[in-house]
């Protein structure tokens, strides 16, 4: 008899779906770290082992900051999601190769403790921690942050430090700036990660291929910089033609690095495709405004920070297209408008 049989009870129950992806936060962050490898290798080749040491130190400091904060505040440890390593690496790749390591530690504390943890940890920060860390370092240690060691490849042998291509441009010494080829390969002065456009683009394409980031933000950012530079130099003129200058603006400085690795930070960029487009274009516009009109030679980090702050606004006001709703709402709006018009006509009729 079935009644006397024993049945399995107390089985696990939960709401559907009972199948979830294996791509969790940790794996996502791991892919981002992988994508940073080409740029890290390139900077080690260009600037020597000092570059690699600073990148590793940045990761260690960032991880230590988050671990200590969670310990002190008696919160569960969150370092295992690897996001602190990403922040540390991105911050470290934003500094010159001879940057004092204790200053890098200050930057990590600002980025991780103040910008990320105090706002509630991963997912709650309103600005990109690495970008804020970089800006704080730039404003606090301006000399150290703007003393650029020259490339070990193709640089002047006798010089130890030299200006960046954008610095030369701002000082009106474009004639002595390196050509597009060395800009693309990164054998110029600049921050660790940003000089070699080739390595950055390789890493960015890896992220897009793995569907970690959407191509919309980098494409909109770089595209906007290119178009604005093209139009500006076509109107203003100069030593080189507009196309050369447009490519110069794309490959010099941190546009590629910022577009692929900083602006695409999930937490501080819009989630809808239209929002991403607006955000990317905004980053490009503010970068070019700062580069062309302000006293700073480079404006990528300020532009990204500004658009980070705009992100909640963009997400709120960008038009949402829900399946099935748009048509119905449009019809309702139209009907309401016609009704208002009809009642207005009636009123006018009554007046007359």
């Amino acid at each position: 008899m079935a009644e006397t049989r024993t049945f399995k009870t107390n089985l696990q129950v939960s709401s559907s779906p009972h199948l979830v992806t294996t791509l969790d936060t940790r794996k996502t962050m791991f892919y981002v770290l992988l994508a940073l490898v080409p740029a890290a290798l390139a900077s080690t080749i260009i600037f020597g082992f000092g570059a690699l040491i600073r990148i590793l130190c940045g990761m260690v400091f960032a991880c230590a900051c988050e671990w200590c904060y969670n310990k002190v505040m008696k919160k569960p440890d969150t370092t295992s999601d690897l996001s602190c390593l990403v922040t540390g690496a991105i911050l470290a790749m934003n500094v010159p190769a001879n940057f004092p390591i204790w200053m890098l530690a200050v930057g990590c504390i600002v980025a991780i403790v103040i910008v990320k943890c105090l706002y509630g940890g991963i997912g709650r920060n309103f600005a990109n921690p690495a970008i804020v860390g970089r800006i704080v370092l730039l404003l606090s240690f301006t000399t150290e942050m703007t003393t650029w060691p020259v490339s070990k490849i193709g640089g002047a042998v006798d010089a130890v430090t030299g200006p960046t291509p954008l610095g030369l441009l701002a000082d009106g010494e474009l004639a002595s700036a390196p050509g597009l080829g060395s800009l693309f390969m990164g054998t110029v002065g600049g921050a660790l990660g940003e000089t070699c456009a080739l390595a950055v683009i390789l890493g960015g394409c890896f992220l897009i291929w793995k569907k970690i980031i959407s191509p919309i933000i980098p494409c909109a950012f770089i595209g906007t910089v290119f178009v604005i530079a093209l139009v500006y130099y076509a109107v203003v003129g100069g030593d080189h033609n507009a196309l050369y200058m447009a490519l110069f603006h794309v490959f010099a400085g941190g546009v590629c690095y910022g577009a692929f690795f900083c602006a695409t930070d999930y937490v501080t960029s819009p989630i809808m495709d239209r929002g991403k487009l607006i955000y990317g274009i905004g980053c490009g516009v503010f970068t070019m405004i700062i580069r062309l009109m302000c006293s700073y030679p480079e404006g990528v980090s300020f532009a990204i920070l500004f658009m980070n702050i705009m992100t909640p606004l963009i997400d709120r006001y960008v038009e949402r297209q829900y399946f099935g709703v748009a048509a119905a709402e449009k019809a309702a709006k139209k009907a309401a408008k016609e009704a208002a018009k009809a009642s207005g006509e009636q009123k006018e009729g009554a007046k007359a």
Partner: protein
Amino acid sequence: MFLRAKHLSSIDAGHYKNTAKCATEVMPIPDVVKISMSQNIGAPCQPLVKKGDAVKVGQKIGDTDAFLHVPVHSSVSGTVSGIETMRNAMGGMDTFVVIETDKLQTVDENIKAPEVTDHKSFVAAIKESGLVGLGGASFPAWLKYDPKNLDEIKNIIINGAECEPFITSDHRTMLEDAQDVLDGTLALIKYLGAEHGYIGIEDNKQDAIDNFNKMIAEQGITNISTFPLKASYPKGAERVLIYEVTGQVCDAGVLPASLGCIVANITSAAFISQYLKTGMPMVKKRLTVDGDAVNKPGNVEVPIGTMVADLIEFCGGYKGEPKKILLGGPMMGRAIYTDAQPLVKANNACLVFSGPQALIPEETACINCGRCHQACPFNLLPTKFADAYETKDVKTLNDLKVMQCMECGSCSFVCPAHRPLAFMNKLGKALVKEAQ
């Protein structure tokens, strides 16, 4: 997407169609069946039999005067040993007619092919057959086939997508009962006055598509065609299927009939043909049994009311200790807490897991990646629903159109933080309904 997309967003949840090659086995009649009195959305039936009554196969044992219902029939012959109230798979309390079987399967003498001549007699016959929507929602089929705008019905869409991972029972129906599927589709086209029938099949079931194409060509059928769909989840959801096949946008809460479409499951189509021939009501169902904790996975035809434990025993018993049993697929199926649970008409799979699928993944913080939004076929914002639900903000939930959500679970699947977004959407919908 901001450009009008040709296809709705979908996800790659994996297919795991391990049992696609397993021909259907007929399960022997178990000692006892428990037949649920509420196997459809709408009113539950009242039992027409009492303890001690003898019942035969196909005999009506449950009915009600309420409008939205379908009658329930006995799937076995034997003696009613009691009327029980117990918790059903959905979590609510329900009445069950318990029948001790005599294993003779004596067919009720009233069973004969129904006389169907026009739409009205067709709907009446379907109502008597006990057919419910077999995709999972159990909407009474007769009501679906009786739209108010009958003369506007143009398309019959037969849903053979079977997008849920693991399940292959519809696939087996398409291979084993292909003629019934075509006949049933023709019957629907004929009695509903439609112009064309589309059989939507995901392209991971190419053998079924080829088979249908061959049969349609051989028999010279002009008003049915197959419609291959990209094999991705959730292509078999009604509103997604209508968009993919006809390009029409079906709003939530709107019947497909208002767009001139009637959607029926492939198994419903096969059943309609069999019922019109024999008059045997809905008393058996083909199920996929799979999962890492079953010894002999396969496709099994069971009498309605068979206990899960009996079904698993037929499939070689449990392999190790089962931790989770699902009725339905892993994306939308229900987890049951005991295997003393009888099967109902809408069940199309029974999956048993003991490995990682049985565990609830640890939830971490949202990183605002927007994958839930990209995965949602309807472009909704599940992460915002979750935030609004946590603050019980009904107005925001309404503004975000939470009622459009069909609970397909794509958002939960893709979430890298493993947040139970689909669950929160369900709770959010319940909150909005409560507030109305």
